[in-house]
C-alpha cells in the first residue's frame, strides 16, 4: 500500500514512470472487469483505454481518504461502463457472428471462449448491479474482499453477503439456462 501511495504521489507530480507502473499493475484487471460486465472484448478494449486516459487526465483529483487507488480506478471504469451502455442503449453484447478474432489465434478456441464469456456475461446481466460488481471484482479482477468493500463503499460483511447471493443467483441462471 505504501508503495502504491508513493507511486500515485509521483504520478500526480507528473512522473511518467510511476504512472506507467500503475498502468501495468491495473490494466489487465480493469480489462477483465469490463469484459465480464460487457460480454464483448472489442468494446471492452475501447472502454479500458478510455478508463486509463481518464485516469491520466484526472489523477490530480485523487485524494487518499482511506480508499485504495484501485477503488478510484474501478469507479472510473464503472462510470465509463454506465456511460457507454447508456449511450448505446444496450445491455448485452453484439451477436456472436460479429466476433472479431485475433489474427494469430485459434479460431475455434476463440469462438468457444467468446461464447463462454458471452454466456457468463449474459448470466451476469440478470444479476443486480451490486451483484454484478461483486462477481466482476472478485472473480475477474481477483480483488480481496476488503478491497472490494472499499471500492463498493460497503462493509466486508455486506460484500460477503452480496457475494453469496450473487453466486447463488448465477448458479441458478446458468443451470436453468
Amino acid at each position, binding site marked *: 500500500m505504501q508503495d502504491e501511495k508513493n507511486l500515485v504521489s509521483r504520478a500526480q507530480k*507528473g512522473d*511518467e514512470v510511476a*504512472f*506507467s507502473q500503475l*498502468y501495468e499493475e491495473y*490494466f*489487465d484487471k480493469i*480489462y*477483465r472487469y469490463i*469484459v*465480464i460486465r460487457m460480454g464483448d*472484448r472489442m468494446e471492452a*478494449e475501447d472502454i*479500458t*483505454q478510455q478508463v*486509463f*486516459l481518464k485516469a*491520466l487526465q484526472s489523477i490530480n483529483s485523487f485524494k487518499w481518504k482511506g480508499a485504495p487507488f484501485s477503488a478510484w480506478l474501478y469507479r472510473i471504469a464503472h462510470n465509463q461502463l454506465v456511460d457507454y451502455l447508456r449511450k448505446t442503449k444496450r445491455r448485452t453484447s453484439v451477436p456472436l457472428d460479429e466476433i472479431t478474432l*485475433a*489474427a494469430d*489465434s485459434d479460431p475455434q478456441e476463440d469462438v468457444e*471462449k467468446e461464447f*463462454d*464469456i458471452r*454466456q*457468463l456475461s449474459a448470466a451476469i446481466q440478470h444479476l443486480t448491479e451490486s451483484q454484478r460488481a461483486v*462477481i*466482476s471484482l*472478485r*472473480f*475477474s479482477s*481477483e480483488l*480481496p*474482499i476488503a478491497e472490494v468493500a472499499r471500492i463498493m463503499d460497503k462493509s466486508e*460483511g455486506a460484500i*460477503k*453477503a452480496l*457475494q*453469496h447471493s450473487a*453466486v*447463488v443467483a*448465477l*448458479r441458478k441462471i*446458468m443451470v436453468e439456462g
Partner: protein
Amino acid sequence: MMRKREKLDNILNECLERVLLAGESVEECLQSYPDYAEELRPLLDTVLSARQVSDIEPRAEFKSRARYEFQQALREKAEKKSRGWFSWQPAWSAVVASIVTFILVSGVTVGAAGNSMPDQPLYPVKLATEQLQLTITRSPLSKAELYVRLADKRVAEIVYLASKDKSEEIESVTRRLDTNLEKIAVLSMAPGAREDRGDVTPAKPEAIQEPPPRPGLMLAPAEPPEGQAPPSEAAPRRPALSERTPLKAPSQQPGSRVEPPTEKTDEEAISIERLQQIKDRAKLRAVIARYAENHTDKLRKALKNAPPSVKQALLRAIAVSEARYKEADKALEGEQNDSEQVPPETAPKRPQGNLTPRKIAPAPRTAPEPTKVAPQRPLDERNSSPEPSRPSRNRAESYKPQPETEAGVNNIEQANDVERRKATIVPYNRNRSEELREALKDAPETDGSTGSPADTASSKAID
C-alpha cells in the same frame, strides 16, 4: 437464521479465498466444513467455472497498441505541463510568435533563443538569428570567423544532446556543423575572400570568349638587355610591388578616372593593405586552431561519458570536426603562405629586366603571379605564331576589365607610375593574378625555356 446465513457467507468466502487464491481444491475446503458441503459444492463449482471463463488476457496486439497510445498521452501531458502558460496554443505558433517578436522588437527572445538547444522550442529562432548574422556579415574573412563561432555552438549542442541520449538529433546537428566548417575552408580559399579588400568582380566568362582587339593594351616594355631572356618567361614567384621593375608608364586611356596620387602615399597604402590582409588571415588561422582543439576535446570528453546509443553519432561528429578543421587550416595555410610571399617591405628586389626563365612550379597556390611582359611584337606576327589552344587562355581572358586596368596589370612590375593606377590596378591585380596562376597551373609543363606553352599562356593572358 440470520446467524446461519452470515456463517454461510463467511464459510463461502473462506473457501473461495482458499480455492481461488491459495490454490486449494474444492474437496479440501469441503472437508473443513462437512456440514455445509452439500450447499457449498455447487456454489464453489459455479465460481470456478465463472473464474475460468473470466480468466481472460487482453489480446497482445491490443495491449501493445493501448500501451503505446497511453505513453503518447503521458508524453503529451508532460509537454503541456512544460510549455506552461502558453500551452493553450500549438507549438508551432509559439515558435512563429517568437520569431515575429524577435524581428519586431525583442532582444529578449533572441537572447533566450541564443542558448536554446535543438530539442527546445526556441531553437529555430536561434538558427534564424544565425542566418541573419551571416547575411549581414559581408567580409568573407569575418564570415569565416563567424562560421567558426557557429561551429562552436553546434559542438555545444552535440555535447548537450549526447547527455540527453538523442542520437538522431546529434546526426542532424553534425550535418549543420559539417556545413559550417566547410564554409570556412571555402571562404578562405575562394577568390571571393578578397572582396573585403575591394577587389573587382570579374565579368562573366561568356562575355569575353572573343575579346575585341585592343591595340592600346600592347604595352611597350623596356627593351631587355641584350643576351637576357625576353620578359615573356614565367616568373617563379610573384614579386612584391616594391620590387617590381619600374617601367615606362603606359599612356593614360582617355576618360580614365584614376587620379594620380603621389607615389609614396600609394606605395604605403598598398603595403598597409597587404599587411592587414596577412594579419587578418593569421588571426583567423589562430582562431580556427584554437577552436579546432577545443572542439575535439569537448567532443571526445562527451564521447567518454556518453551512453552507448549515441557513441556512433559522436564519433561521426568528431570525424567531421577534425577533417573540416584540417581542411580549413590547409586552405588558410596556403593562402597565408601565398600572402607572405609578397610582403612589400621584405621581398628582395629583382633586377630590372633580369627575368631569368624558370620552371613553373606545379603547386597553384604557391605559384607566383606571372607578371611578365611580352616583348612588343607586331599584332599580325603574334597572331600568326603557333600557340597551342588552352583553356587557360580563355580563363585568363575571362575577365573584361577596363583597358586601363588591364594595362595596369601588365605594367605593375614595370611601371614607375604605379601610384597613378593603384586604385584600379590593385584590386584587379589580385583577381588577375589568381587567374594567371590557374592558367600557369593548367599549362603543360616543358623544359622552361623561352616560349614554353606556359610562358605563352602567360603572355597571352597578359595580352
